[in-house]
Each structure stands twice: as C-alpha cells, then as structure tokens.
C-alpha cells in the first residue's frame, strides 16, 4: 500500500488521534484534548481552537456522531465513532503502522549499525 503524502499524513494524524480515542468509548471535547496531552506525556498538544473545528468536520463527514448527554449535573456533547468512522480508523491505523514501521526499520537499523561500529572501535582500542 502506498504511503500518503506528507500533507495528508499530518492532516490524517490529527484525525487518527481523535478516532483512536473515540474507539474505546464516547468522549467530550475537553476530555479528548486532555487525553491527547496525557497519553503522549505532553509530547503532543492539540490546540483547542483547532480541536472543535476538526470534531465538527469529522461529524459532518459522518465518521463520528455527537450527542448531548447528562454528565455531573450538566449536559455535555459526547462524540462516538460511527461504523464509517470505525472503518476509516482501521484504514488510517494500518497506514500509520506501515509508515511508522518503515521509519523505525530505517532509524533503528542505523542506530544498530552505529552501536556495532562503536563497539568494534572500542574493542580495537582495547
């Protein structure tokens, strides 16, 4: 399978993160933003001003569905995956795995080669 272009990948990553978080259970916008920061240990930070337009876009495409539900004495809008969204998530996840696996194989092979060379040089010096 061909890997998508860089622009599509970046755009797709944001979508992938949201779809993946909604796979487990329905969540509201504030929770989604917090979870992305927590689970990535602060590496990924989602700008809140971009989060809501993205949620609305995914909802318009029919990948997620938002519904008002009571929560802690007030109502909140919870988003959950639709069957189409689940299919898209599977595709995007598979694409991401292919991409990250390919990158890892190159990066880790380079690191292994570097370690082996360092060890060999140290051995010669010894």
């Amino acid at each position: 399978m061909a890997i998508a272009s860089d622009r599509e990948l970046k755009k797709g990553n944001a979508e992938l993160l949201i779809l993946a978080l909604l796979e487990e259970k329905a969540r509201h916008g504030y929770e989604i933003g917090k979870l992305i920061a927590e689970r990535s240990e602060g590496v990924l930070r989602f700008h809140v001003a971009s989060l809501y337009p993205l949620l609305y876009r995914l909802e318009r495409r029919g990948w997620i569905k938002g519904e008002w539900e009571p929560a802690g004495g007030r109502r909140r809008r919870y988003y959950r995956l639709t069957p189409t969204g689940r299919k898209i998530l599977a595709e995007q996840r598979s694409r991401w795995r292919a991409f990250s696996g390919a990158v890892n194989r190159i990066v880790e092979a380079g690191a292994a080669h570097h370690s082996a060379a360092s060890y060999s040089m140290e051995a010669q010096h010894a």
Partner: protein
Amino acid sequence: MPDWKKIVREKLGTLPLTNGRRDEVIEELAQQLESAYEEALAQGINEQEAMQRSLAQFKDWERLRCEVFQSVEGARLPVWEQNGAFSPRRWPVWIALGLSALLFALPTFRQALEMIPLPGSYPEPPSSQILSDAALRRVEHSGDKQKYARALAFVALHSPKEDDERAVQAAEKAIALDPQLTWIAAKISHATYLYPGYDPHPWIERLKAWDPQNGFAYMLEADANFHWWETPWTKYSATPGGLRAALAAEPRWRISMEKAFAAPRIDFYDAQQFALDRQVLLEQGFDRPEMLLAAGWSQPVPVLMLISFYIDIQLKDIGETAEKAGRTDDALAAYWSVVRFGERLKAEPMDTAQTYSNKLRRDAYKHILPLLRSNGRAAEASAVESALAALPRFDYSVEPSYFSLEAMGNRSARVIVVSAILVALLGTATILWLIFVIALKWNADFSRPFNRLASSLCFAPPALLLASIALFLGYYPYARSIAQFHSYKDLEYGYAPVLVGLYNVTRFGNLNDVWLSHMFWPSVWCAAVALVGAGLLWWMRDRPRPDHPDAA
C-alpha cells in the same frame, strides 16, 4: 462564576448556522472554557488569572468563527458575515474603493493610464499617425461638417502615409477655407523623402508663392530635386567629395540651395503646427501630452546632409579655392554667407536646428579668422573671435541637464509601468470582487464558488488604492494639460523624458513588435495544454498502475 455562554456568544459574534446548531456550538465552547477555568481554580489559581488562562485557549475568535462555520457547513463563511480587515462589512474597504474611483475620475490619473504604450494604441512611434483611423475620420467628418479649416489641416498633417489621397483632399479643403494654412503644403509635399509616383513640386510651388521670403520652401525643393536625381547619383563615387562635386554641378539642386541661402528668413512652421495640433487635440477631447509630442514627429525637416554638402561647397570649393587664388573678398563672401545662413537657422527653435546652426557658424568663423589675421584686419578678426567665443557649446547628447531629466524620467517611467500593471490586475480583481459581493448581498446562497472567490479577492480594493496612489504619484511631476505647453521644446524637456523612459521600459526587447504579435496566442495555447496536462497528472497521481494488484 462567569457566564461562559454569554462570553462565547459575544466573542464569536454572528455565526449563521441553522437548526439550532449555533447554540450547540456556543454551549460546547462555553463548556470547554468552563472546564479549563474550574481546573485552574482547583490548582489554586485565583479567579481572575483562571479566567484569563481559560480565555487564552481561543486567541483568534474570528478565525475560530470562520473555521467552525466551514467545518459544520462544509463551505466558507458567507462573505457578508466575515469580519476580516478587508471584508465588505468593513467601511474602510468601501472608502478605499471610493478613493480609487475618485482617482480614476481625475483627468491626471486617466492621462497616466492612457500614456501606457500598448499594442494597437495611439500614438505609435515613430509614425506621424497619432489618432486611430476611426478617430481621424471623426475629426475629418466634423471638419467637413463645420467647414472648420484647422480640423481638416490636422487630418492632412496626421493621415497615415498609406492614405495619401485623403491627406491631399483634406489639405486642399483646409487651404481653400483658410489660405493662412498654406504652410501645411510643406508636409503634404513629402519632399524630404522619396515617395514613388508622387510629384512634390506643385505643393512646393504653392508654398513658395505663399511665403516667398522663407528659405524652407527652397530647401524642400532642393530635397525633392535631389530625390529626382538619386538614380544618376549611383554612378558617382560614394565618397562625400565626389558626391559633393557631382551635386555642385547639378543646377536643379544647386540653384534651389542658393535661393534657400539667400532667403531673408528660415521657418519650418513648427510654431504654427504646434498651435494647430494643440488646439485641435484639445477641441477633440484629447488632452494628452504624448499625443501632442507625437504630433511633432510629423513635422517636415529638410535633409541636413544636403545642407552640409552645400556648406562644404561654400567653405571648401568656393571659399578655400578663392583664398588660395588670393581673392580674399570672394573667399570672405562665401564664408560670411554660411554665417548668415546659420544666424537665420538659429531663429528656428528646434534643438537640431540650433545645434546645427552653431556648428556651421563655428566652421565658418574658423575659416574667416585666420584669413582676416593674415590680411592684417585685426579689428574685424577680434570681432569674429568674440563671436566664436560666444557661440554656445550646446550638444544635445551630452547636455547635463537633459541627462538628469532623462534619468528622472526613466525612474518615473518604471514606477508608472509597475503601478499601471498592478492597477490593471487589481482593477480587474476589484471589479470581480464587486460583482460577487453584490450578487452575494442580493442572495447569500447565490453560489459557493462566488463566495470563495469574493473571500479570496477581498484584498483587491485596498491594494488597488495603493497601486493607484503609486501611479498617481509616479506620474504627477509630468501631469499637465497640453494647454500649458507652449512649444515642442517645452514638451521635449517637460514630458519627453518620461515618455521615452516608458517606451524603453515597456519594450522588453521588442516585446510589442515581436512577442505580442507572434507569441501571444501560442503562449495561451501552451498554458492551456500545460494546465490540462497538470490536471491529468494530478488526477492520475493516486490511480493504481494497471499492473498493480489493486487495479483490478
């Protein structure tokens, strides 16, 4: 606890979403702010700072508004709902548009636009045709109808060479109505260049009869007779000496030149032509200095090379020969005839005539001075020496003041051309923007592509104003009505530098002559083919190859 819904509603402004979606969005964003606020309070932050921290999540509310609308509706926010700096809801945009329209209403601004040389526009240098055929016919028609001699004379002077019959007819009618316009016969004679099948002599005779004191008619006659003599000329040596000797032996040319030299005055009628051109152009609504300047290009000037031959005959063949033979008085008479001719030529205001007058007087004085000294006529020699020293060393090509005018004109021309191109592009964009914006005001759901284009082109009205101001300022130093110019020389110094600069800037290596006429449509076709090709490549980009397993 702050009223978060109220805050969001105020900051977000109008959000034209349907079916209660607007309230849902406001509520959801308010919850985001409220949650962040509560979290900050729980961390022990005071209320004011917690509120600031919460609001800092949305820095650009206008952008958020646009993005929310686009995400929900799948289309841009209607242009009339946008609050961007250049959106049609902002009154400065309409003020910018109004100011641009005001600039367009200024005659100076239109004059700046009209002077841009475009293919097919008039005047077209170096032709004497300053008006299009249609415009010239209108002038002729009105001249005929009103029996207005000056309009007809204008047509006679500025008809294209190819339409000589029309020029002749117009000249006949003009002179019949007003004999004071007989000077136009100089132009109609076409005496200064060979015009196959055309006899210039009747017109020259007419001019001689009307203005017998003027040497110009005789110079034209000499020119016409030289052209008549051109065929036998080829058998003579090409060296100037050989040709001069042959010409001196040709009575038809020599006698005319003798009469030109002996005439009491020399007038090329440029003051008359300037006044006529300026008057008719103003009357016809063409208050355009570049047209008046181009009108001067049609002015007939005698062939200077032939005058040089005659001067050499006087100075070298007659004067020096007499000097060698000891006939001092004869030699001086020949030399002084050149000085007197130069003085008469000096009265002519054209730069070329004045430079030439200086040159030939200097040459004559340099012959006279040693002859007087060798004959012991010290007092006369001293007077000649003073006259020689007083001759201005004017050289058109190295005149410093003209150089600085030319440099200034070139700089202005660059500003004018760049600004004019921007005015044309931005003017087109503004007109499109205006059409789309009006259509969308009339019906907000008129067309999504229109809304997208109107949003994209919103920069055009303010940018048009800036480009128009640049054009106006670039041209302003040269902005004058043609009524304010009093001679061609005025125009040459006050206007020609920028016009010449403009032609140099816009020519781009004969762009007008070759590129536009031969390469314009091929380039359009190539661009169209390239676009279609690029579109196909883009479409094919994600298609599986036929040999790919997915292709099946």
